[in-house]
């Protein structure tokens, strides 16, 4: 249940990115959450909705892509999705497997609303 502390860290990244791009607001946040990341997507969503109030992402939507566990066998080289959760290679039955996906916890992309670029010379004159 450390989703709230993760979300606090997420907002540091969001605010930093928004500043860099001189954004007015953040409209979408997309995360990739591995099945083995130790995080419950539903709890992450609730924490996000609580935290976002009054911030630059106050109206932002959160999208979470759950990443399944993908294994690679160090013995036979076989790769597969870990559907059974028993960390064994389906091809050779070996236990010497490496987890190549499914542990990530990443802010993948965000969508920002930014001011129109400043009109250059020849653009509409402001009064």
């Amino acid at each position, binding site marked *: 249940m450390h989703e709230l502390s993760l979300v606090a860290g997420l907002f540091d990244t969001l605010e930093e*990115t928004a500043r860099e*791009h001189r954004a007015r607001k953040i409209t979408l946040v997309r995360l990739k959450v591995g099945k083995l990341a130790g995080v419950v997507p539903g709890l992450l969503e609730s924490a996000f909705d609580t935290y976002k109030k009054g911030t630059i992402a106050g109206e932002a939507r959160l999208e979470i892509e759950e990443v399944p566990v993908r294994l690679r066998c160090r013995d036979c080289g076989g790769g597969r999705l870990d559907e059974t959760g*028993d960390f064994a290679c389906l091809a050779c039955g070996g236990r010497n497997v490496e987890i190549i996906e499914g542990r990530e916890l990443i*802010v993948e992309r*965000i969508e920002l609303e930014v001011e129109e670029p400043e009109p250059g010379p020849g653009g509409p004159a402001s009064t």
Partner: protein
Amino acid sequence: MSTKDVLVLRDLLATNKQAAAAIRKELRARGILAVNLLSSPGSGKTTLLEALAERLRDRYRLAVIEGDIETERDAERIRAKGIPAWQITTGGACHLEARMIGKVLGEVPAAIDFLFIENVGNLVCPAGYDLGEELRCVLLSSPEGDDKPAKYPQAFLTADCLILTKSDLVPYLPFDPAKAAAEALSIKPGLRVFTLSALRGDGVDELAAFFVEALERLRSVRA
């Protein structure tokens, strides 16, 4: 107003990972072996530290950082063994984070050999947080059941060492140490497994020797 799509690709735990990397670097430079102990509440982390303190304190300088949601109790138990201890009370947070360790580290004497960090009792959340430790040990006590590794894979995946505690109770419980070890090893091949009873003292010497070996290795790399 226009919309802009920005590719961020930043680890949500990046801040913690950076803080942990800085701690690891500092501890290695000081020649200190840091061990992060992780388990459910009541599996015997503090009792194990008491037993280790008795075996190591004559030859080595130890310090302990205790993580708990409330109270100074665990730190007091360690101090009673003559070991300096710092208590971090998280006030509800379910795990320790690297910056909490960083704050305490300034007070820990520079000339020590071992720094043991007892994490908040919880087999889930602490697994996601690197504290800058050299070794991560997961404790599993016999009353908890030998089916826990597969139920809490992340803790075992990130561990270097599995310590099966309360072996003195095994005769009275449906707990098979070999099964627990095999299940953990299927998740994390190469995991070092120790079976011990900190209360009776069985098996504690082997674990202490493992930590001493790890300390010597850390210092030989540094030299």
